[in-house]
């Protein structure tokens, strides 16, 4: 990646109209461990692959509750993720206090993206090095958004971010048309299948390295991990032949 002439500062454009510092910040998201998000008519879920720094260490949390109706999965600099979730929790709590009503997901995502953008246009401030998959349920139904260090956000039916996420996206592209009417249990299984696509052959999903966040109609944001995840993992073990593993050499490389 030899673009060193124009990548020294956040305030420098390249002749092609790119700001390389923002591109590099987005690289941090691509290097983080995978997170998958998908939604049906009534539910939106995220599935995250937790990473441990070593065999001795605990697995980093990937999924955070923001409010009763909003949660996030992250990929990238986890410390930045914690800072952003502090901001999001504060915003939703204040909104609830003032308006006695849950904050609309899209409004929160817009505010967050505006904050991220401010960090790309100020000398001395660096962009956030984390991408979020924001899931929520409000008056307009189930939502899934992807946010990025650049300050853009996208509305998705299903998306995956982080390392080897293309494999998960391939799975989601194959199955997304059935998601809208999917019951919750099947939606979670789809999410786990998609996440499993991102794993190298030597690894498997387990109650230790996997976490699921669920929110929707009559359901407060709930994080399913550890023993509670076991029934879902067992269910996908039985039907492991649902998709062909299509990890190519290019995707296996870090």
């Amino acid at each position: 990646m030899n673009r060193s002439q124009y990548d020294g500062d956040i305030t420098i454009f390249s002749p092609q109209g790119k700001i390389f510092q923002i591109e590099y910040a987005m690289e941090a998201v691509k290097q983080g461990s995978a997170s998958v998000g998908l939604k049906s008519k009534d539910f939106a879920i995220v599935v995250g692959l937790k990473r441990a720094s070593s065999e001795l260490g605990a697995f980093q949390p990937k999924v955070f509750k923001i409010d009763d109706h909003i949660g996030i999965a992250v990929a990238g600099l986890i410390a930045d993720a914690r800072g952003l979730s502090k901001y999001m929790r504060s915003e939703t709590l204040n909104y609830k206090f003032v308006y006695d009503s849950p904050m609309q997901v899209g409004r929160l995502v817009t505010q967050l993206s505006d904050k991220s953008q401010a960090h790309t246009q100020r000398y001395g401030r660096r962009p956030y090095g984390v991408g979020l998959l924001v899931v929520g349920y409000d008056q307009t139904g189930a939502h899934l958004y992807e946010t990025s260090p650049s300050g853009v956000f996208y509305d998705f039916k299903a998306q995956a971010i982080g390392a080897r996420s293309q494999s998960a996206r391939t799975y989601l592209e194959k199955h997304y048309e059935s998601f809208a009417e999917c019951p919750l249990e099947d939606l979670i299984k789809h999410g786990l299948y998609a996440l499993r696509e991102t794993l190298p052959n030597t690894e498997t999903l387990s109650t230790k390295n996997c976490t699921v966040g669920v929110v929707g109609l009559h359901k407060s944001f709930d994080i399913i991990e550890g023993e509670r995840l076991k029934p879902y993992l067992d269910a996908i073990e039985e039907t492991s032949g649902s998709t062909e593993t299509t990890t190519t050499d290019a995707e296996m490389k870090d």
Partner: protein
Amino acid sequence: MAAPSFTVTPLQNVKEQKFSPYVNNGGTTLAVAGPDFCVVAADTRLSDGGYGISSRTVPKVTKLTDKCVIATSGMQGDMITLHKTLKARLVMYEHQNGKPMSTTAIAQLLSNTLYYKRFFPYYTFNVIGGIDDDGVGVAYSYDAVGSFERVKYSSSGTGQQLVQPILDNQLGRKHHHVPTTAAPVNMTVEDSEALVRDVFNSAGERDIYTGDFVDIYTITKDGVKTSKAELKFD
């Protein structure tokens, strides 16, 4: 030449107006702690500070967690804001600590919140009822600026002076000259709820600000149950 004399007479029919930020909307609350439960109750009458009734159905009790409930009498505006503030603080605590606040922690939080406004107080008279981390029933009573004490039973509000002596007699077993009339050491949930209804009916007879309905909250290890009883509408 004599100095002119002036007499100053006060202007007639002019009253000096002064804005008071406080009003007492009336009402009575109480909490009774048992060995493994707590009963918290409050009437639902809102008065306008004088002889009028603004509403018969305004709740004074808020459930904070599955183990803790707060009941407040005094000024309705301050009560609503206080309860909202506490609920927001509980959410923040749960985000930061990964678990709901214990009843004892909430009791301390309320005291700090009230004292924070020591020089422009919340015009509120609070009682907290619930169960602690060991499953034992607790009740706390407060003054307007945060002085609090853990007690077995407590009442506050316009009916406090009518209610508290009954609780002292029935639950504290005070001033019994005929020993057989003493209440049992540990009352059951049903007997406590019945006592609460009797107490509110008695208070409603003599306190004009207490009446209409009473919300009764019962907190046990299985959660919080609520019921409503009718009082007199006069």
